[in-house]
Each structure stands twice: as C-alpha cells, then as structure tokens.
C-alpha cells in the first residue's frame, strides 16, 4: 500500500500596520487564500517581537508605519538573517494586496 502525502506549504505573512481596522481587513483577505496565514503587528515593537518569535515569508508595511520604523525592522531582520521580503502595502484593501504578495514571493524564490 502506498501512501500519498500532500506537503502543505504555509505562507506566513506579517502585517505591520498602525491602523487597526485596516490591518484586520488585510488579515481577513489574506486568510481567504488557502495556505496563507496572517499575523498582525500594530507597531514596530510588536513587529520586532513577532519576527524574533517566528520566521515570516513576507512582511507587509501598512499605514502609520514610518520609513524610519521600517528601516529599523529591516536592520533587525538582517541580523536575524531572515531573508524576508519587506514590502510596502498600498491601498489598504484587496486591490493591490494579492499582487504585492505574489511579487514578493516571486522575488524571494
């Protein structure tokens, strides 16, 4: 008897966004896609805590996070040798979200 196993590759995406309702919307949209999982950080500190606890496949920078804060996050990711693409999310909703994630994953491969 042979057994077939399906290797499920979970894509873990961290949303860093100070606008909580929009962050929740983005998380909901991500979770609609099979095998995509969203985590949310409302601040740089939350994001750093999340990144030290878990490796993410993509990090989305949403509203309310400054360039300086994004730079700090990138520095920490470098120290962790995380190789995680950090992309700015634009739009706050579904319009650009999926393309941003597909582009980030494409460049990561």
């Amino acid at each position, binding site marked *: 008897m042979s057994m077939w196993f399906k290797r499920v590759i979970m894509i873990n995406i961290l949303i860093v966004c100070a606008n909580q309702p929009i962050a929740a919307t983005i998380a909901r949209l991500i979770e609609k896609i099979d095998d995509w999982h969203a985590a949310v950080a409302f601040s740089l500190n939350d994001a750093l805590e999340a990144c030290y606890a878990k490796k993410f496949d993509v990090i989305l920078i949403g509203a309310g996070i400054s360039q300086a804060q994004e730079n700090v996050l990138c520095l920490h990711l470098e120290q962790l040798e995380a190789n995680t693409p950090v992309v*700015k999310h634009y739009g706050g909703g579904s319009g650009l979200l999926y*393309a941003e994630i597909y582009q980030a994953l494409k460049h990561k491969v």
Partner: protein
Amino acid sequence: MAQTVLHTANTRGAADHGWLKSFHSFSFAGYYNPDRINFGALRVLNDDFVTGGRGFGEHPHDNMEIISIPLDGALQHKDSLGNTATIKAGEIQVMSAGTGVYHSEYNSDPEHAAKFLQIWVFPNKRNVEPRYDQITIDATTRNEFVQVLSPNADDAGVWIYQDAWFNMARFDANTAKTYNLHKEGNGAYIFVLKGSVKVDGQNLDTRDGFGIWDTDKFEIEASTAAEFLIMEVPMKF
C-alpha cells in the same frame, strides 16, 4: 530615444461580479499579471461599469492617491472623513487616502448604469492626513489639452501628493497637438476613451492604453473625433 508600451483594450484583465464589470489595465484584486503591475507611479487604471442601484459597500484605503472620473451616470460617495457627495460625468474626484479612510460608492439611479475610471497613483508622501476633493471639468474646450489634475493646489484641476499631471482632451478628426511633459523623469500613459488617435506613430483605438517615456514630448493626432486622457507620472518614485 523614447520608450513605449502598448496595452490594447482586449489585453486588460476582466472581472465580472454581476453588478460590477471591470477592466483592469494593471494587476488588481484577482487579476494578476507580473508584466502588468504599473506604469511608473500609475498603479491602477480600472474601467468600471456599475449596475443601477448597486455599488461598493464601505471599504478601506490607505496610502494611495485615488482618482475617480465618471464617464456616464453618477456615484454617491460617503467617507469616514464626513464627506458626502455625488460625483457625476463631467467631474473628477480625488481622495488622498494617507493614514487610512473608509468610503462607499453607490449608483443610486436604479435605471442607469454608472461608468467610471478609477485610477490609483502612488503618493510621494506616505501617511498623510486623508483628504477629499472634487471639481467640475471643463467640458466645452475642444482641440486642446485640459488639465484636470496636478501636484499644485493653486493650479488647474484637483491636486494630489505626486508629481503627476492629468489632461483630458476632445479632439476633432485630424487635430494634432504636441504634449510637453512637465518634469524630467516623467512618462505619460494615454488612455483612449472614444475614437482613434495616433501617438508617436502608434494607432490607438477606444480603450487602448499607451505608455511613453524617456522623452520630453510627443505628438498626438486624432484619426477620428476622439476623447482621451493623458496621465503623466514619475517613472521612478
């Protein structure tokens, strides 16, 4: 030497949600084409058709300059900034989404569909205070470029947080004009609303899009009576 890209009408992504039919010139929502992500700072050009009595329920936006140009019919706009307005054909609306704004757009006329362009431009400043504006466009001038958008609050048209200029035009057949770009490093995306034009030797028909950059000017000639929109945007941003 000028570089160009052609996006014919039938190569756009198409979405049909019943009440909403949309043609996407660039990747949007469920339409993903890695070769059609953006033209410089121009990120979204959606050609939308909304059934009478239907519309977009409340939804969020942030960090985008969102421009709506109704072509037929009207939409009721309501947003979390407290703005309530009707925008109809002959007007242009802009929303700088900045730190975040919620809005809805609804075609309240049960008998007639609303057709409009929804255009998103990357801003040159993130996390701005959200704002809203709308104006009436000059509908009488023919055979000239009519500026409807710029980076300057004191200039003609609406303004946005980006070094972008939009011009609309209604040309009689055989009218030819030179468009001079405003800023080095900008490109222009021409979208034909009606009729046929020729840009830099390229024939364009209704709903074709054509981008041109690495040039400081180009000629546009109407092959037939035509209406078109020129969106000049930074190619690097």
